[in-house]
């Protein structure tokens, strides 16, 4: 039990701390790294709650694949870009912080005071532990995913395919543009380019 | 022997012609015109067939077709005609070829123009024939679109403003009606349905009736138009091309009056009865106000447009007085107004083609240079101001008589409108046609050509015919009018709510020879 508390404590501090650090990191690379840290911490939180498989893919997919993609893009655009500190939109910052705080307060209130209204019981942690033991976490998950949620699962595959195709299209345009006039300065020039391409096609 | 489904054919034939026009190359203007004219004439011939197979003595709906369309929602394709819609359809089918003839001066975008004309005809006939609320609303809104484009593309200087105004006014009204239709759909007795004849039996409390009636009334009052919802009309009429003005004045305005007759009153008779004094007041104000404003117009088309406000005031009076004479007169007057005002717009269009102006001040002494046109104009103007032995008189007289039988002294301000009609029409006539032609342009005008005579002669013939021998028309109108009035005067809500309605439920107040419907 104590170990769990300690692990939880560390996880809590790391997750929250890195999130906050993200907020103040000037460099995008730093922010990305802090995000990775947060995600690893979250993976531990998943483990603590008996979601083993999810914890694994959290690290592999999120911290691994997606964050690498982020870093890749950051590198592609230039690492050394810094954000200006001045906020150009009036009232944006205080309003955002204020509303964010309000939102956090409300969520906290629910977490500590209104939870019984959100979750009306069920088996609780013991039931999950039982499930994790009997068919095993992955098997239980698979059963649910491919049984009850087959259709949504297939739908997500469509989503992914669409996303892939879309990205390919976007990328192709970049290539087509890069091969000719790399950067179209004005909208008009861009229009011309597009028109020219249509004509060629 | 199986009869041709005349009504359905008449509804969709113009659409078919429009479709066929779509295949004519747009450069072949002559072909387009001839084809459009031929198509419109063909539709008119079909409508004659419909008229012949119509049984004059029958009050209910005839020549009907009833098909299930979207059964899940109780929507059907239900059409049929009675004595009211019959003449409205005839009027539409009659005036479309004439409007096409009046559009020879259209030289730009000829093809879409005629397509829009024919689509408009189809939609208008559909409105008059539809007996399913959904179908009705569909046609109702469909008629708006071609008209919008006719004004907006082929109109005069301020056409965009006018088209927008026309569209927004009518749309604002009809959206309220849509809400009411949907409400009605859900409150139908039994299965929710859009079928008009089933909806007639819908039990509604007086309070509901009142709200629904007002919603319907809003749509129809804009279209009629009743003061103070009329200001779209002078703009739309003035800016529309000749054919557009003709169709607007002759048929589109009738949609409002027709809607009142067909839907607002029969569906909510108690509310209609309750609001009669209010509506009659509005109608009388419309008669006097329209006439007064027409008096001082500088633009000939605007003048005629305002005269429509006054005339439609008479129609609404006739519809609401709740006597058979009034109802028959109102229905006949719808037809009459369509003919006379349509002809007036054709004539002004012909004048515009010659002089490229519509301002009264620019004319003068035209009777000398264009005597035939002056004669026809005078005849039509006289019909419009209700000269006996011409059509306008028969309708106006029946309306006022029907009004007198039930609301005796209200007739005085209404009848005074007839005096004012003489004032503004004759004054305008004097300024346009009388006197010595002041300018060179006015002296050298050419008189009506064969095409123009061909488009005016049928109207003039009908104007005289209805005035001298209205029997064939009234014979077909009367049974339906009687049925409508019976329904309007019968109490439909139960005794407790009905007790508060003035002169309801007692049976036969006023000139009570209304037979209870069997």
């Amino acid at each position: 039990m104590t170990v769990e508390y300690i692990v939880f404590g560390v996880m809590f501090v790391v997750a929250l701390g890195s999130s906050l650090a993200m907020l103040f990191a000037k460099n995008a690379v730093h922010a990305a790294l802090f995000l990775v840290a947060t995600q690893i911490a979250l993976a531990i939180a998943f483990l603590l709650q008996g979601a083993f498989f999810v914890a694994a893919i959290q690290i592999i997919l999120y911290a691994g694949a997606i964050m690498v993609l982020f870093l890749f893009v950051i590198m592609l655009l230039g690492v050394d870009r810094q954000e200006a500190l001045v906020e150009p939109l009036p009232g944006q910052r205080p309003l955002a912080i204020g509303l964010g705080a309000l939102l956090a307060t409300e969520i906290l209130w629910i977490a500590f005071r209104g939870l019984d209204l959100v979750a009306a019981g069920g088996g609780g942690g013991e039931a999950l532990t039982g499930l994790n033991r009997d068919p095993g976490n992955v098997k239980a998950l698979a059963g649910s995913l491919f049984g009850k949620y087959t259709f949504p699962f297939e739908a997500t595959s469509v989503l992914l395919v669409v996303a892939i195709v879309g990205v390919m299209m976007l990328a192709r345009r970049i290539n087509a543009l890069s091969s000719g006039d790399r950067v179209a300065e004005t909208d008009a020039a861009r229009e011309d380019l597009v028109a020219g391409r249509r004509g060629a096609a | 022997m199986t009869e041709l489904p005349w009504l359905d054919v008449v509804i969709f034939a113009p659409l078919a012609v429009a479709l066929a026009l779509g295949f004519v190359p747009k450069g072949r203007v002559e072909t387009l015109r001839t084809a459009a004219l031929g198509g419109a004439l063909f539709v008119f011939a079909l409508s004659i067939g419909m008229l012949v197979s119509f049984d004059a003595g029958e009050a209910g709906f005839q020549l009907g077709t009833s098909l299930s369309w979207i059964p899940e929602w109780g929507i059907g394709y239900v059409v049929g005609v009675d004595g009211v819609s019959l003449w409205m359809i005839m009027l539409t089918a009659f005036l479309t070829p004439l409007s096409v003839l009046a559009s020879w001066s259209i030289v730009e975008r000829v093809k879409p123009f005629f397509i829009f004309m024919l689509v408009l005809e189809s939609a208008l006939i559909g409105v008059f024939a539809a007996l399913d609320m959904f179908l009705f609303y569909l046609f109702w809104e469909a008629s708006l679109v071609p008209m919008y484009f006719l004004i907006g593309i082929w109109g005069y200087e301020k056409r965009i403003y006018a088209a927008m105004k026309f569209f927004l006014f009518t749309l604002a009204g009809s959206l309220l009606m849509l809400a009411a239709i949907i409400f009605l759909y859900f409150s139908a007795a039994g299965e929710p349905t859009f079928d008009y004849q089933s909806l007639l039996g819908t039990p509604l409390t007086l309070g509901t009736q009142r709200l629904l009636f007002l919603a319907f009334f809003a749509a129809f009052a804009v279209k009629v138009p009743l003061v103070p919802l009329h200001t779209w009309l002078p703009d739309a009429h003035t800016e529309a091309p000749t054919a557009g003005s003709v169709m607007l004045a002759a048929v589109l305005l009738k949609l409002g009056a027709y809607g009142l007759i067909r839907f607002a009153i029969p569906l909510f008779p108690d509310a209609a009865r309750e609001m009669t004094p209010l509506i009659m007041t509005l109608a009388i104000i419309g008669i006097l106000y329209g006439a007064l404003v027409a008096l001082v117009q500088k633009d000939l088309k605007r003048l005629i447009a305002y005269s429509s406000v006054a005339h439609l005031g008479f129609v609404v009076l006739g519809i609401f007085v709740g006597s058979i004479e009034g109802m028959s007169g109102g229905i006949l007057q719808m037809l009459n107004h369509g003919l006379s005002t349509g002809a007036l717009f054709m004539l002004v269009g012909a004048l515009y083609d010659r002089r490229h102006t519509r301002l009264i001040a620019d004319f003068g002494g035209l009777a000398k240079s264009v005597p035939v046109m002056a004669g026809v104009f005078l005849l039509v103007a006289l019909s419009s101001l209700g000269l006996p032995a011409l059509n306008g008189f028969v309708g106006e007289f029946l309306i006022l008589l029907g009004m007198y039988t039930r609301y005796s002294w209200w007739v005085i301000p209404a009848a005074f409108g007839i005096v004012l009609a003489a004032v503004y029409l004759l004054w305008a006539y004097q300024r346009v046609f009388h006197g010595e032609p002041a300018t060179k342009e006015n002296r050298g005008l050419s008189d009506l050509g064969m095409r123009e005579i061909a488009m005016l002669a049928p109207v003039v013939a009908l104007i005289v015919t209805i005035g001298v021998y209205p029997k064939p028309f009234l014979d077909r109108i009367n049974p339906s009018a009687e049925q409508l009035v019976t329904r309007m005067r019968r109490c439909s809500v139960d005794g407790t709510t009905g007790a508060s309605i003035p002169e309801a439920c007692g049976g036969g107040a006023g000139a009570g020879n209304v037979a209870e419907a069997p």
Partner: protein
Amino acid sequence: MSIDPSYYLALAGLMFAIGVVGTLTRRNAIVIFMFIELMLNAVNLIFVTFARMWGNVDGQVLVFFVLVVAAAEAVVGLAIILVIARRRETSNVDDISMLKW
């Protein structure tokens, strides 16, 4: 007895709020994206926590879907950012304000 779910939820809530604030205050499009990912992560945590509370794996399944959506979003979003950056030489969202009246 393991740790009360409320704490997990509290953590998720705070992270979500941080994500919101970050999204609204940062101007670099990539960073904004990262904050969106942060919010998604917070939601994932909530799902997992609820899965434990209910004693089934449905919540965990939902994390899958979130993941997929997040992945797709990241891919498409980053591609768009790339295109924009190549066209307009910027990844500052305030510089991309052409889409208005």
